[in-house]
């Protein structure tokens, strides 16, 4: 039986090392402040403190921009920035010791809104932008020195101005999407130790090899002197990507000469990594018959005080913004912008939810303007096999129209569309990308798989084991999956962007072939997908494999209070070939519930520069009682098709379908989440400015 069901599983949080101390982080209460002094003299015996002077000699880190230090050295850049840490014999002693650390600050001007941050004269969060070189800096970064923009990505396809000149109708709107927290059931948890000059870290992470690279850089070690092990995680959704708390634990352990464990309290999740709040402006032009002729889009992704993977998020938000449509003239500018807010990074959907929300809402505005059915407008323009995307790449294995038609049928679109909404989207997969796997034959007919794919509840180990059993012609019970460990697993880009089943599945085929052909005990397989985009024109290969999906929603709105009730929600996702059906269906349903939370409830609320709802009483995730009466999903399969990743595909179209359903009632919503108050405000905008 699944060890998660029997309780036999040992999650990252449950890894303990003999003699370990427990760490706690001391955080700045100010959104921007100079650190004048850190006094730890009040700490009792038996506690170890880590202060800025302890880490001043360590190298800065950051997977795309090297903008972060193990502790804030001279300036704390957000309310929650780590300025010190303590380690003590018990978690409680650590909590009490942290409260005894006395930090003196001098407040500095904060910048809390993404549009304020790009204005000339805005306080600079970072004076300069030093670019990273490692495995996650896979595209050309375009920092705008002397501004808060750490990456600007552009798409230039055709001639947007000329396109708009020949349009019969042009619509434009600006949208805002709030920040959100991942709310994984298990918090970020790690334990670090030094053994003979070698750093070993057990941590719940989706990105073992990127993390090893970062730790090696920080501590000035060769890669082989750092080991990262990733036990199963109790959820992640992007929260456990790249370097989070591991360097603090490692630096504390180095000073204490003992293993140090760091488990984040729930409230500190909101201070560690959230989803990018964004502002997206969309302008679309079409001929009277609905043929799209031009798109002009600006995306501003608020990455908070540190870039993390924000440049990548902004780039994907940008290249997916035009959506799965044939548009001959496209201009996109996507900026990743610093503010003095907690850092934002990977989150299920990876920027593509934000731009899908804005574009799909605008398509409905366009349909309204042209007097067309929103479904017909989309079908007229959807990409088909062999069409060119705005990046210049030719689209293959294209199923957008099938996804959309299936979703529309599920809500009875053709029988009346009041209270109903549709959305369709494309989402890129990590490109370029590398995956490798080893299969080892043991005694008694068993096989062991060595691979860096992290298990975070998505069922990846089970899925890869099922594939291996099928390829090896054995029962799945004779497949063992080794816990991902940089000492034993071959290099893999990372467990993100819904890529593992697709990439590892293909690597596995090669590994099994190698095992058979070599006649030895060990088979090795590797897959490399090349590609990438020019950051100034958006030309190139955005994605070697496109995630395709559509959503349909039906809502009721209490027009007196603005309360939205989703009564029906459906997604149709292109799966190609399904490997592990229960897991695939759960992925889709889970994505839809995340999308529902984004649509209706979830919002990191900032007041006076600090998060004010960093708890699960004031921050609402959907409960089962919030789910639509009818929540259904469909996995579209094609005989002989390759596996398509589907861990995120159903997230981005859900808020847009719900928003379009609300808008079909004459309420032109632009901001997410659709709290009753925002819906009422939108209803009033309609009254104030009749079309």
């Amino acid at each position: 039986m699944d060890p998660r069901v029997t309780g036999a599983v040992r999650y990252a949080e449950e890894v303990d090392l003999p003699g370990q101390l427990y760490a706690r982080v001391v955080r700045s209460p100010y959104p921007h402040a100079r650190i004048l002094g850190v006094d730890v003299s009040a700490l009792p015996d038996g506690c170890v403190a880590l202060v800025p002077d302890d880490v001043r000699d360590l190298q800065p880190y950051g997977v795309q921009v090297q903008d972060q230090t193990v502790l804030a050295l001279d300036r704390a850049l957000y309310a929650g920035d780590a300025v010190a840490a303590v380690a003590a014999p018990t978690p409680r002693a650590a909590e009490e010791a942290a409260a005894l650390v006395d930090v003196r600050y001098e407040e500095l001007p904060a910048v809390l809104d993404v549009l304020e941050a790009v204005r000339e004269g805005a306080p600079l969060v970072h004076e300069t932008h030093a670019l990273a070189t490692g495995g996650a800096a896979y595209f050309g970064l375009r920092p705008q020195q002397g501004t808060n923009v750490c990456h600007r990505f552009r798409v230039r396809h055709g001639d947007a101005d000329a396109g708009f000149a020949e349009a019969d109708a042009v619509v434009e709107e600006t949208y805002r999407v709030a920040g959100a927290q991942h709310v994984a059931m298990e918090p970020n948890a790690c334990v670090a130790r030094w053994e003979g000059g070698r750093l070993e870290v057990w941590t719940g992470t989706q990105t073992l090899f990127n993390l090893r690279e970062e730790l090696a850089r920080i501590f000035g070690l060769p890669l082989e002197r750092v080991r990262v092990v990733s036990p199963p995680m109790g959820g992640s959704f992007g929260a456990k990507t790249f370097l989070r708390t591991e360097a603090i634990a490692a630096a504390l352990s180095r000073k204490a000469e003992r293993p140090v464990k760091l488990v984040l309290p729930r409230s500190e999740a909101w201070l560690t990594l959230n989803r990018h709040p964004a502002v997206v402006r969309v302008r679309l032009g079409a001929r009277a018959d609905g043929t799209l002729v031009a798109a002009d889009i600006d995306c501003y992704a608020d990455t908070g005080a540190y870039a993390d993977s924000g440049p990548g998020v902004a780039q994907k938000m940008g290249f997916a913004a035009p959506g799965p449509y044939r548009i001959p003239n496209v201009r996109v500018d996507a900026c990743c912008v610093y503010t003095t807010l907690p850092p934002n990074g990977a989150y299920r959907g990876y920027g593509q939810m934000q731009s899908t929300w804005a574009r799909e809402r605008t398509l409905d505005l366009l349909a309204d303007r042209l007097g067309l059915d929103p479904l017909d407008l989309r079908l007229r323009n959807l990409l088909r096999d062999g069409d060119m995307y705005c990046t210049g790449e030719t689209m293959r294995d294209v199923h957008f129209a099938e996804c959309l038609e299936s979703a529309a049928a599920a809500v009875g679109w053709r029988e009346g569309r009041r209270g109903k909404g549709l959305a369709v989207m494309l989402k890129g997969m990590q490109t370029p990308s590398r995956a490798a796997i080893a299969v080892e034959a043991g005694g008694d007919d068993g096989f062991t798989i060595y691979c860096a794919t992290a298990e975070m509840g998505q069922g990846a180990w089970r899925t890869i084991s099922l594939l291996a059993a099928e390829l090896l012609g054995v029962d799945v019970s004779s497949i063992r999956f080794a816990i991902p460990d940089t000492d034993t697993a071959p290099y893999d880009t990372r467990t993100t962007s819904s890529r593992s089943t697709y990439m590892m599945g293909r690597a596995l085929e090669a590994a099994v072939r190698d095992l058979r052909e070599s006649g030895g005990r060990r088979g090795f397989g590797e897959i490399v997908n090349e590609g990438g985009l020019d950051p100034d024109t958006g030309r190139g290969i955005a994605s070697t494999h496109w995630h395709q999906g559509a959503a349909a929603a039906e809502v009721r709105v209490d027009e007196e209070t603005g309360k939205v009730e989703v009564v029906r929600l459906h997604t149709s996702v292109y799966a190609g070939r399904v490997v592990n059906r229960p897991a695939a269906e759960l992925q889709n349903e889970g994505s839809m519930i995340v999308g529902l939370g984004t649509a209706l409830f979830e919002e990191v609320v900032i007041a006076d520069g600090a998060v004010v709802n960093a708890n699960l009483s004031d921050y609402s995730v959907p409960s089962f009682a919030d789910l639509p009466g009818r929540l259904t999903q469909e996995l579209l399969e094609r005989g002989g098709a390759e596996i398509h990743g589907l861990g995120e595909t159903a997230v981005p179209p859900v808020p847009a379908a719900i928003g379009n359903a609300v808008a079909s009632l004459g309420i032109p919503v632009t901001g997410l989440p659709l709290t009753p108050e925002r819906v009422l405000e939108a209803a009033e905008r309609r009254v104030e400015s009749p079309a």
Partner: protein
Amino acid sequence: MSTEPEWLEPTSLEEALALKAERGEAVTVVAGGTFVGILVNQRLLAPEAFLSLQRVAGLDYMRANGELRLGALVTHRTVELSPLVRERWPALAHAFSLVASPRVRNQATVGGVLADADHASDPPAMLLALGARAVARSVRVEREIPIEELIVGFYETTLEPDELLVEVRVPGGPHRATYRKFRSRSHEGRPAVGVAVCRRNGELRVVVGAVAGRPQWFPQLCDPVADPAEIGRAYAEAIEAISDVSGSAEYRRRVVAVEVRRALEELR
């Protein structure tokens, strides 16, 4: 280093009252712990001692002789599911059924929800509308306190430092009542606005909870024959409202107008 807080665990009411008389406000009373637990975890509360009522025998009774008498340790879930309460005080059972999730309702108590005086909860407004009284006891005296006099502000009651809330009394007899909970986010969320209404013997009580420090009742606006919409508008104008993650003060006033009207219409 701070010292561990003391955990006092009396097994009888007499013992508990003696401890409360001795320690007064220096002890934090714990019943179900659902509220105190959050405050302690968020480090908003760090008392030197807790006085747990969990082992005090005989405070989890439910009796009805004309009026309903609920021991302070009766849980929300017990009230919600009681056939007796459902039959004779259905609005009360309904209000308790809307609090958070079953996990919380299995633990949270009737005494706790009143003595905490947490503004964003459902039962106090309903109890006030039903004309309930709390029974406070100390080693000196036992007294009844109408709910409108018990809760006076955010987390503030008129309980004396040596008193424990031991019982809640809800008048019996024919009445018609309802409770409407308006949540601005999840179903398990706390109310942004709660409206409790009760008609009894030609009298009307409209009580609005969760919009400010205490449940608000304006007797002068409760004309039993007035138009529901008019009462709703009057309440929206008179009400004191706060802004927080559940909604702005202005928005809450608008919802008050709507939900008061709807609650009254339910009783037509």
